[in-house]
């Protein structure tokens, strides 16, 4: 089966600019996750979708980050405006059914650098 697709692979922007990341999960996977991985740290869960509804976004900095999954398939994560501390790899993952206890399938991530 095709894996989780993410784009772009790399993005460089200046602080205060906006940026968006796109994720296409594995076909048939109902649950989609966005993680932030800062250099030297493990991935941090930002938001979890079940179909097109948000299950949990308690760790999403909502003053600048937003995410949507309008049709229950693709998802976008946006940062507006970006800060220097947002430099990280943004990972998307999906699982077949609901819940973080199911095996998660990860994409290759988008590496974001803020100048």
């Amino acid at each position, binding site marked *: 089966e095709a894996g989780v697709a993410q784009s772009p692979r790399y993005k460089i922007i200046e602080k205060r600019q906006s940026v968006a990341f796109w994720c296409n999960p594995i076909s048939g996977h109902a649950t989609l996750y966005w993680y932030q991985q800062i250099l030297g740290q493990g991935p941090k869960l930002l938001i979890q979708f079940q179909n097109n509804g948000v299950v949990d976004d308690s760790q999403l900095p909502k003053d600048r980050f937003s995410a949507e999954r309008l049709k229950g398939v693709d998802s976008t994560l946006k940062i507006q405006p970006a800060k220097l501390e947002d430099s990280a790899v943004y990972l998307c993952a999906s699982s077949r059914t609901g819940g973080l206890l199911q095996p*998660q399938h990860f994409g290759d991530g988008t590496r974001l650098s803020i100048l």
Partner: protein
Amino acid sequence: AQSVSQHNHHVILSEAASLELGCNYSYGGTVNLFWYVQYPGQHLQLLLKYFSGDPLVKGIKGFEAEFIKSKFSFNLRKPSVQWSDTAEYFCAVGSNTGNQFYFGTGTSLTVIP
């Protein structure tokens, strides 16, 4: 709040050596434990998981992990490592409600042929 500690940041072993990577967690309720692996140039993938039952769980590629509740630990082991085991290893813990999930900081393993 939950937390996961991986005390070994970088481990270097020769082929055929035995491996043990430490993982300790902090959580007040029932937990579910995972090890994920990221090989060079590849994405994160599940190595093994523990939900309940036998505390010794076996995963892919000869890896196993033991859940010791009294020590809040879930260490990863392999009796004889290969060069192809070179990777970043992440321990993770999930709440029983399934809406909280935390990764450790990872351990980089380098196996020298």
